[in-house]
């Protein structure tokens, strides 16, 4: 956990009071809606179909139990008793009143939570691996660097009015859980030959209307130069990124239009001109930030405690354990994923009561710490294995022990037309229907790892391009239609999925997905071959034939 100091606290309080003044000026009419729009967007407030939507940042996906309780409090006090965890380690409230927003922000600020730059054309919440600091084999905890970047990007005087939004993601593991290749800047932590920390820097990834996989702009930037190099990228983008067309304004388009070599050259020239920058991070500064991260005092525990041996006789427990429990870097401990994808439920939602209960369980079993992942699930990162059976029962009671993590019903979906004013089609009911179709655990288990991503419009908040199966809502003659892609992925081998055929109407989506899955089961050469690997091996054609043969 990162502990705010007096300076961090002062800054977010100053931001709350500024926003309070901005809301006051809007309510009094001193600010026009157009003027206010930019100001509210800089603080995570959108105007949706029915109400204001409020997006709160959970930097690098780490929360304390105290913070989670406060998120529950905001849901209960200012909203309708629930919140929605997003694909970028944020939580959204969908029914908040403008006049209540400053108070909600002030309540959050008391526990070191803010909503700065969770929307708008600026540098957004810095995301990271939700298992940072606990994943076996991780090079080092990437959250130290995420926090340095969080501070650097917060209220930046030069880059708060960029051509378009700008997203960072960091990973320090070989397996990329942070989707760095589909971010404006993706950072992969590495060590050089001298054992010094640095980053492979990727640039120009992104989804939306024109998806691109990020390209490596520099294979190694030393940790001390991370901020100055990032500043060079941002400065080139701020000056040359397109501002004439919102759909061509992301850095990915600039990188694409210039070509990565030319773009890299521009950045290098700028970086050289910056010279010995005040942004250089000497070791003591990095250590200062590192020292404010606290880590649990783990016990020396056996690899296989008796409690776990006994519980292994319960098939329901085993089913959950095999699905939702993953190895921890410390012996005797596990990382436990809490599925926010119950059968028939909207993906990523949690009620205030669930949040409170999870906070209590985190105190009891996970050193008071909770993580939020980009798949819209939560995790308890430090659970002693002996506690797993008791924890499972408690999680099951509150409905977050569905054993479907990474399975076909672990669907990522945007809010879609049920909430969002940009959407062309509904996302949530599609997800709900699919979770019903595949509710049989044995079937889902047989299918294996399969990520379905649903976006209600081309803006791609549900990351459909990189879903193993991607579902994109479009509008055709005033009706909801859905384009389906297969073979996308968001990990270290990130790829954009391929369209399988013509769009299908709302009522047929679940049937088509079932057909695709059946085709896969027939086509895979062995049970271990994952859906994406079968698509990679065979291409789209055999799937297309089977799905569209009868349509």
């Amino acid at each position, binding site marked *: 956990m990162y502990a705010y*100091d007096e*300076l*961090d606290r*002062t*800054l977010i309080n*100053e931001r709350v*009071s*500024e926003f309070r003044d*901005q809301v006051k000026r809007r309510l009094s009419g*001193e600010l026009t809606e157009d*003027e206010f729009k*930019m*100001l509210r967007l800089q603080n995570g407030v959108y105007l949706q179909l029915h109400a204001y939507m409020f997006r709160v940042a959970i930097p690098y996906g780490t929360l304390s139990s105290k913070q989670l309780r406060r998120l529950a409090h905001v849901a209960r006090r200012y909203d309708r008793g629930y919140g929605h965890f997003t694909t970028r380690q944020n939580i959204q409230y969908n029914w908040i009143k403008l006049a209540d927003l400053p108070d909600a922000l002030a309540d959050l600020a008391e526990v070191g939570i803010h909503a700065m730059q969770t929307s708008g*054309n600026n540098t957004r919440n810095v995301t990271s691996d939700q298992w940072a600091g606990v994943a076996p084999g991780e090079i080092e905890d990437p959250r130290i660097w995420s926090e340095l970047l969080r*501070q*650097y990007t*917060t*209220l*930046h*005087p*030069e*880059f*708060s*009015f*960029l051509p378009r939004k700008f997203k960072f993601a960091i990973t320090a593991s070989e397996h990329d859980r942070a989707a760095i290749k589909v971010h404006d800047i993706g950072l992969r932590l590495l060590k050089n030959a001298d054992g010094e920390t640095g980053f492979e820097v990727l640039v120009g990834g992104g989804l939306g209307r024109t998806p691109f996989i990020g390209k490596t702009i520099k294979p190694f930037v030393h940790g001390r130069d991370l901020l100055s190099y990032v500043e060079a990228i941002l*400065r080139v983008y*701020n*000056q040359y990124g397109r*501002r004439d067309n919102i759909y061509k304004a992301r850095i990915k388009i600039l990188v694409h239009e210039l070509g990565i070599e030319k773009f890299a050259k521009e950045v290098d020239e700028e970086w050289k*001109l910056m010279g010995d*920058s*005040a*942004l250089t991070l000497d070791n*003591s*500064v990095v250590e*200062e*930030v590192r020292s404010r991260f606290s880590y649990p005092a783990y016990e020396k525990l056996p690899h296989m405690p008796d409690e776990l041996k006994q519980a292994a006789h319960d098939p329901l427990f085993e089913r959950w354990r095999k699905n939702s429990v993953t190895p921890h870097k410390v012996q005797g401990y596990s990382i436990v994923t809490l599925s926010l994808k119950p059968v028939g439920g909207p993906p990523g939602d949690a009620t205030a009561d669930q949040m409170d209960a999870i906070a209590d369980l985190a105190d009891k079993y996970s050193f008071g710490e909770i993580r939020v992942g980009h798949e819209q699930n939560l995790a308890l990162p430090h659970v002693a294995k002996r506690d797993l059976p008791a924890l499972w029962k408690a999680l099951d009671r509150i409905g977050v022990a569905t054993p479907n993590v990474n399975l076909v019903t672990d669907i990522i979906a945007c809010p879609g037309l049920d909430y969002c004013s940009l959407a062309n089609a509904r996302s949530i009911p599609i997800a709900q229907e699919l979770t019903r179709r595949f509710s049989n655990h044995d079937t889902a288990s047989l299918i294996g790892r399969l990520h379905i991503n649903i976006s209600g419009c081309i803006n791609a908040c549900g990351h459909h391009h990189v879903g193993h199966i991607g579902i994109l809502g479009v509008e055709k003659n005033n009706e909801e239609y859905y384009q389906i892609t297969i073979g996308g992925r968001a990990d270290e081998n990130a790829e954009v999925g391929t369209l399988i055929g013509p769009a299908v109407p709302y009522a047929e989506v679940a049937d088509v997905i079932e057909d695709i899955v059946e085709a896969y089961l027939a086509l895979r050469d062995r049970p271990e071959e994952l859906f994406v690997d079968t698509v990679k091996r065979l291409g789209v054609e055999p799937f297309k034939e089977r799905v569209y043969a009868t349509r």
Partner: protein
Amino acid sequence: MRLVKQGRIATDIFLHVADGAELPEDGAILIPAARFLENAETLSQRADKIGVIWPNNRDLDDLVPYLDRVVVVALVFPSFRDGRAYSQARLLRERYGFKGELRATGQVLRDQFVFMLRAGFDAFEVKKDADADAFAETVKRYTVFYQPTGDGRVTALNRRMQLRHSESASQ
């Protein structure tokens, strides 16, 4: 529109000369970049003060040779969403060492004052009178800054390091 300079409401002594308008014989003038560059050598010889209005999509390289001869560079915010002039301001101050007046023009609202000050602006053509009047209190709003810029404000990281040193010295 009101001009705020060095933190106070000020009278603008510069005549804004539009494209195509006749240049006055004397007096301080602020003229568009293209017109300035057409005749930069002669204009720089004028006895009275001269400033230039520099668009946010024009490379600063063309201006750099004349920086010691202009007393004002006015940068432009065609809309408050367009942040290119923040980069230009920092480059003028921090890279090219421009010491004259750096003026923010166009869509300038109170909500940008702190960003602008930090980027190096010291004069503001403020769109709304109420915002100009609120300048002094608005810029006091923030006391903590995460990024180093050329404005000299001490960053949070530096304050922490100083605190560490004084703590270890007192032990």
